[in-house]
């Protein structure tokens, strides 16, 4: 061992492969194989019977997919998922960048505010669902009271989660609450890398606040924006516990997203094959969205 040099290529490679081995085995066993297996299962009749008798699934000529396209559920779930992702990501970005810019300006107590504003991010997802369910509670909830005060008593039975046209927004508010802190933190870190002197030079040249924001700060911030927005897209695309706890997909399927639909098919209906068909299409959509997003961003980058 001592006769070889440290940079000996072959022994370097062997050592690094050895170091990667535990993680590789883990990922292969618990991520790669299961993903491939679930795609395979999406083409099979595979239910609770197969699990009990340990029999493999049987190829069923795309029956799972045909079944999905026959009912409205899949189409509805796709629409709900996309509107949820779009709505939450856009509002989240606007509020987060606003908060980050404010905390980055010379404001008293910015460090303290930065640290306490992180609390919602730490609160477990199911517990944040409980917190918002209590605020939204249809009989004694705070929101019902606030809405009735603001509307001078005209709307006295506001129950955001019980109305099919507002339920998705209700879950979205809980998602925003939990996710705004992390995005603000990342954007704030990005803002601190914007060179101060350029911004000051522009100010002397007479560039206004908005001008400076769009032509100096935003370009410098774009790598951080790209990463934090794509993290948020992925997270909201995958969101499940908030829906399952707060609405269970209701009322009247108004909050049934792809996550809820696939879970319901696979683990409530115990039809794992058709659940897998939902997740397979869901993964494809996610890959398309992320690739499209990356392409779009690459074009805009300077």
């Amino acid at each position, binding site marked *: 061992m001592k006769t070889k040099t440290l940079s000996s290529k072959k022994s370097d490679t062997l050592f690094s492969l050895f170091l990667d081995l535990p*993680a590789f085995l883990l990922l292969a066993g618990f991520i790669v194989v299961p993903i491939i297996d679930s795609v395979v299962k999406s083409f099979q009749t595979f239910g609770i019977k197969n699990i009990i008798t340990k029999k493999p699934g049987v190829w069923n000529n795309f029956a799972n997919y045909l079944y999905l396209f026959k009912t409205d559920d899949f189409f509805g779930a796709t629409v709900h998922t996309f509107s949820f992702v779009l709505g939450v990501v856009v509002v989240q970005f606007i509020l987060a960048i606003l908060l980050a810019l*404010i905390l980055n*300006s010379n404001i008293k107590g910015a460090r303290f505010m930065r640290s306490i504003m992180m609390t919602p991010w730490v609160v477990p997802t199911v517990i944040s669902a409980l917190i918002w369910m209590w605020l939204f509670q249809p009989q004694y909830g705070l929101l019902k009271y606030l809405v009735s005060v603001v509307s001078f008593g005209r709307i006295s039975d506001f129950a955001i989660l019980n109305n099919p046209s507002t339920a998705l927004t209700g879950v979205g508010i809980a998602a925003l609450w939990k996710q705004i802190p992390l995005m603000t933190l990342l954007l704030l870190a990005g803002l601190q890398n914007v060179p101060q002197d350029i911004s000051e030079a522009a100010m002397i040249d007479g560039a206004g606040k908005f001008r400076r924001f769009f032509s100096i700060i935003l370009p410098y911030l774009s790598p951080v924006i790209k990463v934090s927005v794509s993290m948020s897209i992925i997270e909201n695309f995958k969101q499940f516990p908030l829906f399952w706890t707060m609405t269970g997909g209701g009322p009247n399927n108004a909050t049934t997203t792809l996550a809820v639909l696939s879970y319901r098919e696979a683990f409530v209906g115990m039809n794992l094959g058709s659940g897998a068909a939902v997740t397979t299409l869901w993964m494809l959509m996610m890959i398309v969205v992320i690739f499209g997003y990356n392409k779009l961003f690459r074009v805009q980058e300077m």
Partner: protein
Amino acid sequence: MKNTMKSDSKIFSFFKYVALVGILLFLLFPLYWVLITAFKTNMEAYRYPPTFYPRVPVLDSFISLFRENNQFFVYYKNNIIVSSVVALLCCVIAIFSGYSLARFKNQWNKWFFALLLASQMFPVISRMISLYSIMGKLGIINTLGGLSLALLAAQAPFCIILMSSFFAGIPKEIEEAAYVDGAGRWRILFSIVTPLVKSGLVAVGIYAFLMTWDDYLHAATLIQADGKRTLSVGIALRYLGELSYDWSLVNTISIVGTIPVVMLFFFFQKYMIKGLVAGAVKG
């Protein structure tokens, strides 16, 4: 001219404070609401219009949680066990692979890095549909060990990337000097390089702990026995009845279930904030 500019910036600064107060209220008021509800009697919690501070602060729901509804602490204990095991193992794996990714730029590691990025994208439910039967066949379904392994795989990719960004900041000359002194590869890794990235290791450990503490889907599908359930699933199944919500109790559970992670985060927040930024921006 100068006057209009000044009044402009006054209006601007007014809106700045309105926005700041509005957003912070949105983020922090719900926490206050949970806190006061937990100290209300159920009679007061169900009063409408609601009271904005507990008229008669009581510990009833805390006592009821400890005395009668203490199945909660079984879930709590399981959650602590699983999160600690995952956090520890995650640190070990992140040292191994994070070091490898940062030091050795070969073809294999390029592919390995791509795998790490891609594996964070797939929906958990998709994995669970398959793991449910695979782990059933292997006999590790419904065990805390099996659950920990599945969760470890879910947390490892981000942790490895995070750790490698810390390793990348250590100059290679340090290792070369140690090598000249006759230290082997493992000695260099464990007794020379790893101590230099302690802060990264703390960030990785806490991150893995927080994310595992938050898990719902893995436990919901891989655990069936009530005595082995973890926090999120246990709460959702036991304390959220269709008709009878005991809201003071639910709010108490929210507090007790959040305290460990909030304390952990604030105690180590210096490392966490640095780590989150490094890990996210690199990945």
